């Protein structure tokens, strides 16, 4: 039978809810207080554990109570039988799952679950993997669960192949899943490592992965998750560090040698040694002060003449030897910057480029497609695709104006690479980068042997010259440079520095905090706000004690 129904007013409901909340709060506070007191008194019994779970079920992020809970378990571990502990910990797994129901991203609950698994006499790892499957099905991007998954996979000793299948399933249901793609890259590198090829994994798997990404890209080209993975696939294996140049520095009482490496390394790791007639020097100084760097300087003992620099590749173990002031070493097959693409990978990538171009025809305004084509062309043959790359980068700046700075830097890097290549080919030791719309200077380790750097009329905001230990003349007029970094005074060979029409505001912008730099003879800073600073000339003279000309005037 039906009663007559009436609906409560909002105020009535509010009032009821308020009372309800008050009651809950009072209970919660009383419970918390009691538990804090018990903890002080070191009460470790089942009743307390139950009380803890009541509070934690409501608020699973109360880490003090979780700690207390663990103290109780540790106490039992020492006092009670392992069957008892097993049983209690097992029920705690259920309890944490209940807490995860309240908040699937609760740090404390996930952490406690790890702890329980570690302390359980007979943990059931398989069940935990299934739990992860369930949670990842609900939210494929729950990073807590991904972390926990790695933990239990290690515990269960589950094979990478099984894990790969799980990652497959997640990508199939939703390919906007960075975690899953990332996990995939790890698993594949572990399962199918490639040796001696440019591809990160063995070739037929590599092909399959390219196809997978291609499917994702054609399905939704504006989703960035598969593109990130694509980038990983294209990146290839970077060649090992090698010696780019070896220059004997001018000045100083002892002969000093600057060595440029293609990749950052610690001198001790690669056995970097300077040979002189009588001795071998293994003490190297970095102009940037980093422990792992690309440019290193060593001083030959007084009276001895440096003859060669030797290093051992950390990967192949092969020894590389370069005579001081001798000709630069032969370039690797892919050029100084091109990746070391083998012929096979090259044809694969050419195919991939065709696919990308095809997608580009259908999606002319998609930035990911365009960017990937740039990356591919760059990796394959930057000179052949020179104009296309620059065109695409210009297009990207229009399409994706929010990241214009990134694309400008990208273009700067591309231009600098080409300039460095041509300088190297012609055997010049002067680098002209003027009027190239540069926003940043890259590959300064390739510039160690240059005596002159001209970077006038660009859009540089910073000028990092710390690697340029052998350079004598630098000009960077008409830029927007706010800060200039020089090599430490004792490693600096710079004689002339022209920084007219920039944005230097203080003397410290110009030189940093290190100094002095006695080698500098000519300096010009007209057209910078620093010229308005009273007494700036005096300060400059202090830092550049060898200065003979300032702003075109002889001192």
């Amino acid at each position: 039978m039906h009663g007559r129904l009436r609906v409560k007013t909002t105020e009535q409901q509010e009032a009821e809810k308020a009372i309800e909340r008050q009651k809950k709060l009072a209970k919660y506070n009383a419970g918390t207080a009691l538990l804090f007191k018990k903890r002080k008194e070191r009460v470790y019994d089942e009743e307390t554990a139950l009380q803890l779970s009541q509070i934690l079920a409501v608020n699973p992020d109360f880490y003090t109570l979780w700690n207390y809970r663990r103290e109780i378990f540790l106490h039992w571990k020492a006092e009670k039988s392992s069957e008892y502990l097993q049983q209690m910990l097992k029920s705690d797994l259920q309890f944490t799952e209940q807490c995860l129901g309240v908040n699937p991203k609760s740090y404390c609950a996930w952490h406690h679950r790890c702890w329980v698994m570690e302390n359980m006499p007979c943990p059931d790892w398989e069940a935990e993997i299934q739990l992860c499957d369930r949670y990842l099905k609900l939210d494929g991007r729950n990073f807590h669960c991904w972390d926990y998954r790695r933990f239990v996979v290690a515990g269960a000793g589950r094979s990478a192949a099984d894990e790969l299948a799980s990652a497959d399933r997640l990508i199939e249901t939703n390919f906007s899943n960075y975690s899953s793609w990332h996990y995939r890259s790890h698993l594949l590198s572990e399962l199918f490592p490639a040796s001696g090829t440019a591809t990160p994994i063995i070739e037929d798997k590599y092909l399959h992965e390219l196809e997978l990404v291609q499917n994702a890209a054609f399905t939704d080209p504006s989703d960035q998750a598969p593109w990130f993975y694509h980038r990983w696939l294209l990146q290839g294996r970077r060649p090992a560090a090698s010696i780019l140049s070896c220059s004997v520095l001018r000045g100083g009482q002892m002969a000093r040698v600057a060595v440029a490496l293609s990749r950052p390394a610690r001198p001790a790791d690669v056995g970097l040694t300077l040979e002189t007639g009588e001795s071998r020097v293994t003490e190297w100084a970095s102009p940037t002060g980093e422990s792992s760097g690309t440019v290193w300087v060593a001083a030959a003992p007084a009276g001895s003449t440096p003859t060669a620099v030797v290093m051992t590749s950390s990967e192949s173990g092969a020894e590389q030897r370069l005579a001081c002031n001798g000709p630069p070493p032969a370039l690797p097959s892919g050029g100084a910057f091109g990746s070391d693409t083998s012929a096979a990978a090259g044809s694969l990538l050419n195919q991939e480029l065709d696919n990308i171009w095809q997608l580009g025809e259908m999606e002319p305004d998609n930035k990911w497609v365009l960017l990937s084509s740039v990356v591919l062309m760059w990796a394959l043959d930057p000179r052949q695709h020179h104009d296309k790359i620059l065109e695409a980068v210009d297009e990207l700046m229009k399409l994706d104006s929010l990241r214009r700075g990134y694309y400008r830097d990208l273009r700067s890097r591309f231009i600098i690479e080409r300039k460095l290549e041509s300088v190297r080919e012609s055997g010049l030791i002067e680098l002209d980068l003027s009027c190239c719309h540069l926003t940043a200077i890259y590959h300064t380790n390739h510039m160690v042997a240059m005596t002159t750097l001209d970077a006038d009329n660009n859009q540089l905001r910073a000028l990092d010259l710390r690697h340029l230990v052998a350079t004598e003349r630098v000009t960077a007029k008409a830029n927007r440079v706010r800060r200039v970094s020089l090599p430490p005074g004792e490693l600096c060979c710079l004689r002339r520095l022209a920084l007219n029409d920039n944005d230097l505001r203080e003397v410290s912008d110009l030189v940093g905090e290190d100094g002095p730099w006695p080698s500098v003879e000519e300096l010009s800073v007209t057209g910078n706000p620093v010229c308005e600073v009273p007494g700036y000339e005096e300060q400059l003279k202090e830092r550049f004690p060898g200065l003979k000309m300032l702003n075109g005037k002889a001192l």
Partner: protein
Amino acid sequence: MTLCSCRHSRNTHYSGEWAVLGLTALLNWVSQHSDAGAETPPPAPAEPGTRALRHRRLVHGVVQRWAIEYVDQDTGAPAAQSSEEEGAPKESPETAEAPSASVEEPGSEDAAPASPEEPVKAQPAPRKIPEWTINRMKKLSRRFNIDLAPKVLYSRGAIVLVTDHPTTRPQVLYSRGALVELLISSSIARYAEFRSVGQLLTPLGGRLQPVPSSRADVFTTKHVSVVEKRLLMKLLSFCAELEKHPEEYAGFEEKPFSEFLKSRRLTHNLTHHVTHAIAMVTPETPTLEALRSTQKFLLSLGRYGNTPFLWPMYGSGEIPQCFCRLCAVFGGVYHLSRGVEAVTVDEDGALTGVVSDGQRFTCRRLVLEDAYRPETVEGGDGVSRAVVITDGPLYPPADDQVLLIRLPACDDHPGPVTVLQAGPAASAAPAGLYVIHLTCAARGSAEEDLAPAVARLQQLAVASQEDPDETPAPETARPIRVLYSLYFSRRCGRGANGEGLPDNVAFCSGPDDAIGFDAAVQEARDLFTAHFPGEEFLPRAPDPEEIIFFDEPNESVVTGGAQPTEAAPSGQEPGPETAEPESATGAGDPGAAPAEKAETGIEVAVETKEDKGEELKGAKEGDEEAKEAAVGDGAQIETA
């Protein structure tokens, strides 16, 4: 104004022609509807002050066939068929379709398409599972939930606003998927459970193929090249924002959809998927209509699962019952097993009540199912239906998921057929059995319309199993057996209200051949607004904790223990000052409106007291009147 709604239904079950039935109930329904004598007698001469109503039979052409025997499970011997099925033509018990074809009257040749599978069927002995028999199935009757009018729900509803001209205000052009939103906004969803339709399939290349509709489907499918993937996704993403891109289809609005798709360079495969499985139209459908249909599909994607559709657990007949339940909470009374013979009118010809089983009920408004529509509007479009019970799923790779297949027209059946498979997981059938529903617009008899489609499905199901991509083990491929099939047609009596009936008598239509409830929801909304202008349609139903239960002495005696008693005594002040007229009206209405759709019996809005100052009293009296009536007739009364 206080309303108490009261529903009379000729059926012994709720929801009328939208009902979901167990197997035994279905068989009873079949015998009822194949019995020619069930037609209501011609209206009796009208008494003064009454207008007679006639209940016409809309369901016709009922044919049922068993392909299995009635075996007594205890003796294992074939027994005589139970007499309760006599109404329908039967298979001869010894064998399946083949002999029946020779026995049956013309038109039943279609029932024999399964004969190619006969040899396989002849030797199912190695299987350990006991053979299905009619008896065994009947014992599991309650495990079946078979819909008379199966419909899926679009997961998301949206109203499309369209402006033809920048200066005109946007107008609601069409709404879609409205039911899910209604179920949520009205809190009625709490009465039901849903599964998402697990897989959409389409017959392509002689097999059933998954329809790449969602992003994940498109990504994973191996049947479509990457370029096709892009073309498809481009089309789909533009369709999802159809209103923003009229330029994309400019010039094609009224042209056939196939031409438009050709202009988008869609391949044959894709054209098939988009036309038949996603837009669910025909190649000749005008482009704009087809695009809207596509959009409707797309907007519902991804909300609750990998397909745009939801299927209520225990069948779509659950949905009307949910509305019934809510209505009952607010005082709706149900009279099952009784119809209406006449309406009563006053001297001005306005409605005053109804006559049912000789008893008079007063009411101001009356909503009737369309079987009561006067004969003159006969001839509307009808629906052909088939219910098939099989011993295997149509598409094994999809396991036990609810399947939706749209069979495009072919030589055997000239119109598209909607196929829905629900199995044990959806509680439609006991383990091992599957209920397959076929629905199409009627052309001939239901059997003529749909038996070829059933045969086609059987062939497709076998071919899909053989697909090396899907199931590598060929020995598992076995034809699915049709154990039981039921065909029936239903006329749709759409049209104007009959002349001679008072204004406040409205009709609502029965199930149509569309896959969703949209037309029904729209009709209910229109009816409601026409009768209660300015009232909110289906406002949110209050949660249990928001409801105050009166504890008036006489009321509590009547209700007994049926009412929850947990409400705090202090919170109930049964004074009239707390009862706003709006809430009283609103309380009566939410149930009333959906119930127009919910049950296709008769709805009688019994108005008990016109005195607006005495809502509570009036309501109580109304209730009691209804109670009395109910008790007097021994009808079932459902409490929430």
